[in-house]
């Protein structure tokens, strides 16, 4: 697509534009160039699609990983008198290593290693999978600690009541402890979701065309950084506000049984 210059644009501009000051004309030109010319607004939308897919995928993966890790750690810790079974004695140190490594290295570095050393995706779909897995593994480490503290916040009597009815450890967790813990961990988990959403902006380093990458592309063809990057910031801000609102609603719903 040919580059649009200010001179070319002003020549075709409708009459009312000509009456404006030069500064306003230039601003309108930038908006036109970054959104309307060549249907560039679609680039933001396409980027948002990738951002959503990666966020939701990583979120789901992170919660699953986090839950499993938290249960391993909690059940290991529940053996205070007797020795835990061999499987837990193997898994627990592995979990510790995982938590240490993931929380001890930057997300950006993890993406670079996954993208260019381990998975090396060749297609956009492969890239998306790579992004989801990397962010999910990263998020899982933080979610694990959040869930663990949530599980520990439930009084021991609840576990004992469940066990005394004949439920095994996992049934007691699933039916009794976890549903109650969710209420307590929701605020912290919400924070983690927001962090994760914003962290997806890093997937551009593995060539994923998320909304951040698309804004960068627009900047590189228009030589105009102001409008695309401010727009980008507003998009993330709007998404976070929506997410915050949804979490509020969910929290209120879960409070119903409190009376």
């Amino acid at each position, binding site marked *: 697509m040919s580059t649009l210059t200010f001179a070319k644009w002003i020549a075709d501009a409708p009459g009312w534009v000509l009456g404006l000051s030069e500064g306003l004309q230039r601003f309108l030109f930038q908006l036109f160039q970054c959104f309307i010319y060549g249907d560039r607004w679609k680039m933001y939308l396409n980027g948002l699609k990738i951002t959503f897919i990666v966020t939701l995928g990583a979120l789901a993966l992170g919660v699953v990983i986090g839950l499993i890790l938290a249960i391993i750690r909690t059940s290991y810790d529940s053996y205070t008198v*007797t020795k835990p079974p061999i499987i837990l004695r193997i898994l627990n140190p592995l979990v510790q290593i995982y938590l240490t490594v993931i929380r001890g290295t930057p997300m950006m570095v993890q993406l670079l290693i996954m993208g260019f050393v381990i998975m090396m995706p060749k297609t956009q779909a492969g890239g998306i999978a790579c992004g989801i897995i990397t962010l999910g593994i990263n998020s899982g480490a933080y979610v694990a600690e959040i869930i663990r503290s949530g599980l520990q916040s439930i009084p021991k009597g609840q576990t004992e009541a469940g066990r005394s009815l004949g439920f095994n450890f996992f049934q007691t967790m699933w039916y009794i402890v976890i549903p109650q813990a969710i209420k307590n961990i929701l605020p912290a988990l919400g924070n983690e979701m927001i962090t994760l959403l914003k962290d997806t902006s890093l997937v551009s380093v593995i060539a994923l065309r998320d909304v951040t990458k698309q804004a960068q592309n627009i900047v590189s063809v228009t030589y105009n950084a102001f409008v695309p990057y401010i727009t980008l910031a507003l998009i993330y801000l709007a998404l976070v506000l929506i997410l915050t609102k949804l979490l509020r609603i969910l929290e209120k719903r879960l409070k119903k049984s409190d009376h």
Partner: protein
Amino acid sequence: MTTDKRAVITVKGLEKAFGANQVLRGMDIEIDKGEVIVVIGASGSGKSTFLRCLNCLEDPTGGNIYFDGVDIADVSVDINVHRQKMGMVFQQFNLFPHMTILRNMTIAPIKLLKMTKEDAEKKALGLLDRVGLKDRANDYPNQLSGGQKQRVAIVRALCMDPEVMLFDEPTSALDPEMVGEVLDVMKKLAAEGMTMVIVTHEMGFAREVADRVIFIDEGVIAEQGPPAEFFGNPKSPRLKDFLSKVL
């Protein structure tokens, strides 16, 4: 293993230590079917630990507990199956706050005994009716008073059709005016022939309902007997001392 056919639980040389702290130092007792046993003792004597060992909420560190002829103190036994037949009532009620009363009562029979939802609810409502709480079935635990919660906790355990009911100070967390309603439910249960082991400080209740009272002191059964003799003619000086303080 030869146990008296009537014995539901046979405890032999039961020991429990928390680290270096030896709480139970070898306890032996046979609990017969339909027998109501009240366990008393000073705080720290090990009476709650003894009760909690009976369904292995605390893992014994020594000895055997035969329940229906199976040694459940053996770690290779699947304790979950046996716990289904031992109901337990806690001092702090421990109802599940995120479930309605009905759900509290039906979740275990549905998930563990594979009862249908209809059957389980019918049974739960019947039991709730017997303790005068049928109209609270769809309320949440936090909407109930302490006495009501404890009555629900009792019928929740009964929903599993247990062979034995264990009570760990069931009235200790209640306001005084609510103690009676809970004890009444327990009396009814005893009259119906339920095997019960009750840790309590309610001496009047022990005198009235117990078939046998046992006194635990420093991790052993120091004295036991039918209530009339136990309270009327205590033999050991420790029991005499204890009774003089609580009666």
